[in-house]
């Protein structure tokens, strides 16, 4: 089952220009996996400075995109928690970058959940462009309900 941008926005608190998931291609709560897509248009705000004349998607933006896709996986696996609109925050990231991502390229992110509990999630992400791996990451993120702050 795919998700459109409105459904994505119903889960993710981020908004443009810091929303880095355009479409959710597949959600499988049985195997704890999500496949999501982000196309980095040439007009993205960071290309102007990163780098002048040689635009590349910053690695931290790729991490953020994969983290946002991880939140979508969490919300699909824990809908009763996501419905409470909790705060999500990154606890730890281990990442590697294989190839640069250029303007106009579509990044397909596959997130595999390793553990999803009421107050946290652990996941592994792989980002690809045209079938080639551009980045990988492992995430641990916390989930805090607003009434528990």
């Amino acid at each position: 089952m795919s998700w459109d941008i409105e459904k994505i926005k119903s889960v993710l608190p981020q908004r443009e220009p810091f929303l880095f998931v355009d479409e959710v291609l597949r959600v499988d709560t049985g195997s704890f996996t999500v496949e999501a897509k982000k196309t980095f248009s040439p007009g993205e705000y960071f290309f102007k400075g990163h780098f002048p004349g040689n635009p590349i998607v910053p690695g931290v933006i790729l991490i953020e995109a994969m983290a946002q896709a991880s939140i979508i996986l969490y919300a699909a696996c824990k809908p009763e928690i996501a419905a409470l609109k909790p705060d999500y925050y990154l606890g730890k990231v281990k990442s590697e970058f294989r190839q640069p991502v250029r303007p106009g390229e579509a990044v397909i992110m596959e997130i595999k959940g390793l553990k999803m509990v009421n107050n946290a999630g652990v996941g592994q992400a792989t980002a690809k462009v045209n079938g080639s791996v551009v980045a990988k990451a492992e995430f641990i993120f916390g989930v805090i309900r607003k009434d528990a702050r």
Partner: protein
Amino acid sequence: MANKIDDELKKIVSTITEIPLDTLKPDADFFDDLKIDSMKAIEIVAAFEKKYKIVIPEEEIPKMRSLSKIIAFAKDKIK
């Protein structure tokens, strides 16, 4: 097998918590004694599950407050 599990789990906990192997006491409470936060605790649980291909029910996680308790759980599940 039992000692192998002990050693493997001790290494997992030591790596994640950055507490040297020779100072990691089996009965030290993760939260009260070692000051491990909830993020590291869930990281330990996820690493444990991945290593032994078992699932720890969410309600069991709060009971695993020390290395010795994780080892006891592992020995009960991995027979």
